[in-house]
């Protein structure tokens, strides 16, 4: 079952342990991220989850960014040099493991991230703007476990 959500409570867990404990039937993960990167830890938790899942040999089908989660896609994200760069980690995840990073086009448009002139978009190259159906259509596959961060 895929009814896991870390939306409301600050859930800190050891991702390796969590994945091994609840996932015994070779699931494929689909992540749904709804919080912006600096204001909350959700994106960092999602990244840690993805990295742990991949390291353990599980497949992450895609990561979908909705609501304020679309701010993860900004190519202008800039943190202090001694802080974790969420942008770099998303790019690495996409480049090294070919995990698609999908951005809800409606949510991105409403937040000024996606524009009608693609050259004005502030999205980093590793993110792709798609409709929500892209995410939900994947849930027809029973091996997919949707996890919200």
């Amino acid at each position, binding site marked *: 079952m895929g*009814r896991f959500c870390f939306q409301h409570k600050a859930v800190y867990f050891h991702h390796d342990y969590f994945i091994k404990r609840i996932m015994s039937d070779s699931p494929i993960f689909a992540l749904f991220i709804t919080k912006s990167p600096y204001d909350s830890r959700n994106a960092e938790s999602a990244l840690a989850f993805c990295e742990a899942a991949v390291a353990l040999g599980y497949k992450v089908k895609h990561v979908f960014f909705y609501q304020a989660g679309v701010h993860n896609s900004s190519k202008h994200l800039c943190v202090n040099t001694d802080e974790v760069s969420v942008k770099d980690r998303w790019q690495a995840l996409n480049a090294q493991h070919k995990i698609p990073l999908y951005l809800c086009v409606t949510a991105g448009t409403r937040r000024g991230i996606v524009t009608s002139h693609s050259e004005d978009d502030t999205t980093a190259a590793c993110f792709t703007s798609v409709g929500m159906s892209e995410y939900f259509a994947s849930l027809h596959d029973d091996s997919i476990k949707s996890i919200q961060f």
Partner: protein
Amino acid sequence: MNGYLLVINTKAPYHTSAAQDAFEAALAASNVGLEVRVLFDEDGVYQLVETQSPEVISHKNMFKKLCSFPLFDVEKIYVNDTALLNRGISLESDKLESTRLESEQVKTLIKNAHHVLVF
């Protein structure tokens, strides 16, 4: 997919975009053929108040939007009865034909869902 996607609404209709985002997510999921069920819990039950007047803050009526759920094949609507009682809300004419659930039934609804999204 065997089973249903449960969309849980926990936010009041206008303070954040959550209600609108949940509504659009439910419609998008139903549009690709998923069985979608919707639960109103916590402050999300304020979305069901029929006498809301959002025109004074230049917003569209959330309750009217919710009433269109059946047109998009979203027909199983649930409300946490405790959330209603805690906020002193009584849904007199329930146009949405929602099902009231006790706390244990809410747990079962979530437990039996194949996927859950919380807004």
